[in-house]
């Protein structure tokens, strides 16, 4: 039983949801069937004074069952399913007697839709409880009446952000927004208040089922509202570039529904939901951000037989950009930090930057002032290496130079306990080669944080040749403790993220060198779904740094008797950095100019250095070149065992460098296209532009065998 039916002496029926074998209630097939049965029973009750919808779990209803949504691929079946669910909710809200949602905790997505079908909503005021519609973050819309009801409750303008932004609210914000009607201080009060609301109401109808109902703020036939709708349409196009269909489908459903009666609006909503849930984008996003993300965070890439590892004190070498960020997230997660730089003053300045980040958090109301102090006190700034002796994990974040890194490794490691882990935050240098400087290479590992550390959710863990499973487990558990998502990769030049990301900027520079309009190149990158164009992101990363890394790589390879292949970007960087002295954003001049009084603009000098070719490529052509380079490199990484799971590759690409979330990541991009079509296109690109587009044999074989990446 997922739903308990209790009728009391006063004629009030309490329906208590308690899904079996699940920690939370989900809107799944079982609950839907039982809810329908319960409503049949309610309809046949003779002395019914009211209904309370309650939950036996800690949450009210966490949402819909994602596995059920993921399976929906047939439009006829999907439409019938969602219409069925909604018919049940409609019967509940038209019972005639008062129906109250007693929300003892989180009500998200389908759970909140269930509550909106009640006449009154009371929420238990507890800090963990969240309310809202996260559907849009999975490429969906609230199709269980959420769009239709919230629009009628709040009006078009007020409902819009709740439906399209995917943000969730705490109980008091939900009350303020008008999503919840009252708060209850404890569980007992929650039920009492629910009864108290029912008693004076002998009958109850939703506002939209009452005569003379008017949409708050007016409908889209009102000129001022129409103007707002037009602006909202443009804002959605601006943010989605038509890559994400859900926000536009939501706005469209709101507007179309506002012009007709409730039942027609509800059916329009079902059609839009069906279109989204059976479409590619929702499938990509559900797969990546639900199933693959869960798989990663639950430890698929963590050694199974190593027990959970604790870290007590983390030493951080270097208090600069990366060092202070790592110190901040570590201290925030409750771990003590020793922040060491060359001098005490430099270390203190890093700690000062942490203090400023904490202040920002306090200003946003995400940290109390007391906690701010506690967190800051966990960080000890020092210029003395001896202060690191108690650390069970040390992360070096010093300059990206072999000699420097080797020196700090040797200097620090001797002070540490036998089982302490030494991690390098390098983004490019092979871990095994850095581990050569260590006396205990088995305790040596790569922890590649991304900048800015406090915002970037990904950490790339790099396993060197001699790294032990225990070392890996310790690093993995530490990253999880920070609340970040770890992907585990094997040692290779550039690891996974830098290696694949580099192909994006290289292809962008190749296009520039060929004489493509630089703004069109940038637009193609953005349209392909990357957060920044290839030239802009190169400026952010720093052109000087890119040249430095390549020189280091060239030296490394030369030492192995190998030669580094010359890329188009080498030529472009040579001109920009060595000839023009334009190093990137930090120096105020790269591919872009960065005027102090205005937005950045592409440097006009590019027009002379890279004159426009007579043949200007289409956006589609450039988008394919920019994305295929990345996808092909990612397949090579899978082939070489640099990444060992599709989930790590997809999530690493989205969280690491922002690869098209609507495609579900760099490997899902290939599934989305279809393997045979992808291979055919890659071969055509190879013919036109060269071997960098040659599809690996493994991929050709998969395509021929009709396989996809799972």
């Amino acid at each position: 039983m997922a739903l308990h039916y209790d009728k009391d002496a006063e004629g009030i029926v309490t329906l208590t949801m308690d899904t079996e074998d699940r920690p939370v209630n989900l809107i799944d097939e079982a609950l839907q069937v039982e809810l329908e049965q319960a409503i049949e029973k309610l309809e046949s009750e003779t002395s019914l004074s009211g209904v309370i919808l309650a939950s036996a779990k800690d949450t009210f209803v966490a949402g819909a069952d994602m596995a059920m949504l993921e399976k929906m691929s047939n439009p006829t079946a999907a439409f019938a399913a969602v219409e069925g669910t909604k018919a049940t909710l409609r019967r509940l809200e038209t019972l005639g007697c008062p129906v109250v949602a007693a929300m003892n905790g989180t009500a998200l997505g389908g759970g909140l839709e269930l509550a909106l079908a009640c006449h009154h909503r009371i929420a238990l005021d507890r800090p963990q409880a969240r309310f809202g519609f996260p559907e849009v973050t999975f490429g969906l819309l609230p199709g269980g009446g959420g769009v239709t009801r919230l629009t009628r409750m709040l009006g078009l303008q007020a409902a819009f952000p709740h439906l399209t932004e995917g943000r969730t609210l705490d109980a008091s914000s939900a009350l303020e927004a008008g999503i919840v009607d009252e708060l209850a201080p404890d569980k007992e009060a929650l039920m009492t208040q629910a009864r108290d609301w029912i008693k004076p109401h002998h009958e109850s109808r939703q506002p939209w089922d009452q005569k003379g109902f008017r949409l708050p703020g007016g409908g889209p036939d009102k000129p001022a509202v129409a103007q707002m709708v037009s602006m909202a349409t443009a804002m959605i196009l601006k943010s989605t570039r038509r890559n994400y269909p859900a926000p536009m489908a939501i706005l469209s459903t709101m507007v179309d529904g506002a012009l007709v009666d409730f039942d027609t609006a509800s059916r329009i909503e079902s059609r839009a939901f069906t279109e989204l849930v059976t479409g590619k984008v929702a499938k990509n996003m559900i797969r990546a951000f639900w199933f693959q993300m869960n798989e990663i965070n639950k430890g698929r890439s963590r050694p199974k037989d190593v027990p959970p590892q604790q870290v007590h004190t983390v030493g951080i070498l270097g208090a600069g950009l990366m060092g202070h960020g790592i110190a901040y997230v570590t201290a925030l997660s409750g771990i003590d930090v020793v922040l060491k730089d060359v001098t005490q003053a430099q270390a203190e300045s890093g700690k000062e930057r942490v203090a400023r980040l904490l202040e920002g958090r306090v200003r946003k109301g995400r940290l109390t002032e007391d906690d701010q102090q506690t967190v800051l006190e966990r960080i000890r700034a020092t210029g003395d290496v001896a202060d690191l002796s108690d650390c069970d994990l040390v992360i070096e974040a010093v300059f990206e130079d072999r000699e420097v890194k080797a020196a700090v490794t040797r200097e620090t490691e001797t002070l540490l306990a036998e089982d302490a882990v030494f991690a390098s935050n390098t983004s490019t240098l092979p871990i095994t080669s850095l581990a050569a400087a260590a006396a205990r290479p088995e305790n040596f590992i790569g922890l590649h944080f991304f900048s800015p550390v406090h915002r970037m959710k990904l950490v790339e863990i790099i396993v060197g040749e001699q790294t032990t499973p225990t070392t890996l487990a310790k690093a993995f558990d530490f990253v999880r403790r920070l609340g970040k998502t770890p992907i585990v990769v094997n040692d290779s030049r550039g690891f996974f993220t830098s290696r694949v990301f580099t192909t994006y900027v290289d292809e962008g520079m190749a296009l520039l060198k060929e004489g493509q309009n630089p703004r069109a190149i940038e637009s193609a990158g953005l349209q392909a779904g990357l957060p920044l164009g290839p030239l802009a992101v190169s400026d952010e990363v720093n052109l000087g740094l890119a040249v430095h890394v390549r020189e280091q790589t060239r030296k490394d390879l030369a030492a192995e008797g190998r030669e580094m292949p010359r890329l188009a970007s080498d030529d472009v960087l040579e001109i920009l950095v060595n000839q023009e002295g334009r190093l990137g954003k930090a120096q105020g001049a790269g591919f872009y100019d960065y005027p102090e009084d205005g937005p950045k603009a592409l440097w006009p000098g590019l027009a002379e250095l890279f004159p426009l070719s007579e043949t200007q490529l289409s956006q589609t052509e450039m988008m394919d070149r920019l994305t295929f380079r990345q996808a092909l490199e990612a397949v090579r990484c899978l082939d070489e065992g640099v990444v060992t799971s599709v989930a790590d590759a997809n999530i690493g690409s989205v969280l690491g460098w922002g690869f098209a979330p609507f495609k579900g990541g760099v490997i899902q991009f290939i599934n989305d296209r279809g393997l045979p079509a992808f291979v055919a296109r890659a071969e055509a690109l190879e013919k036109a532009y060269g071997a960098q587009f040659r599809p690996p044999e493994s991929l050709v074989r998969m395509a021929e065998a009709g396989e996809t990446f799972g």
Partner: protein
Amino acid sequence: MPMDAYIYDTLRTPRGRGKKDGSLHEVKPIELLAGLLRELGRRTDLDTSQVDDLILGCVTPLGDQGGNIARTAALYAEWDVSVPGVQINRFCSSGLEAANMAAAKVASGWDDLVVAGGVESMSRVPMGTDGGPMAYDPRVAGQVGFVPQGIGADLIATLEGFAREDLDHFALDSQQRASSARDSGWFNRSVIPVCDPNGLPILEQDEYIRPGTTMEALAGLKPAFATVGEMGYDAVAQLKYPQVERIQHVHTAGNSSGIVDGAALVLVGSEAKGKALGLKPRARFVSGALVGMEPTIMLTGPGPASIKALKKAGMAVGDIDLFEINEAFAAVVLRFMRDVGLESTDQVNVNGGAIALGHPLGATGAMLLGTVLDELERRDLNTALIALCIGGGMGIATIIERV
């Protein structure tokens, strides 16, 4: 064409500021039309039972100007009950479209005498109040890539490299030309004062013109579309124009068309009907053309439509004496000139245009036809080309020749 269609007369109201403080705000659009219809009947001594149709453009046909205002106006002006009427909407070109439809009906022999024209009281029925999916339905607007016209105009200027100063200069010319034409009485043949039921004049001349306009004053105006552009419409345009890094917002209230109230009529008929009624033909329709263009930039139609009309007529740009191009925005006219290969404005909008005079949406096309014909006669020239840009990315052109 099987037979020629002739213009026998043109007339219009003066244009009043399209706001509450505009002189024509108190006058209902039906009164603007009725006044013109009565005057047309009077001055051509017209047996209205001979009129086969009344075709009127109106872009926002609701409320005061809704419900087929053409038939309503014919009845209200006490024309013969046999005169039917139809209201049409091809956005900003509706007045010229009405004239072209009248010409086509006459040329084909379906009709012998048609009154065409248009009306728009923008102060009473504001632009956009009729809604419509192109701008206001998210799914449709999203797919088509709808942006307000001013963003399209700014995009034209950005792509063509028109600087703010070029546009302001063009606007200044428009003001000076319109002001001088009005003061010299060159509009008088067509302009019919609007009077109240007592015969007291409400508005006798165009009132939107600002004769004292200076470059400095124009330069001081704020870009009109920068804010909405920034909020999202620029990005929508850039989805179609990925090579544009930033849209230059160079159009202002000073170098864009004015919002005004007004109406206009054109009497179109066959040679035989004119003779029978004792009317003297002033000009004949040589050709007309319509085009559809990319809808986001929206306003690039006049050039291609003109080229199409010229081709149809077997004429070249050099065969045209005067060009009358609707000044929806300064960049529209400059782009037209570039498209057809005109280097100076010597023959273009010689008496100013909508920047100085205003653009009463449904009526403008018919007004332009009358204005340029009056000027051909005044200068004793022969041929003119009239063109307008149109919402939704369309363009229209008409070529006339004096007889």
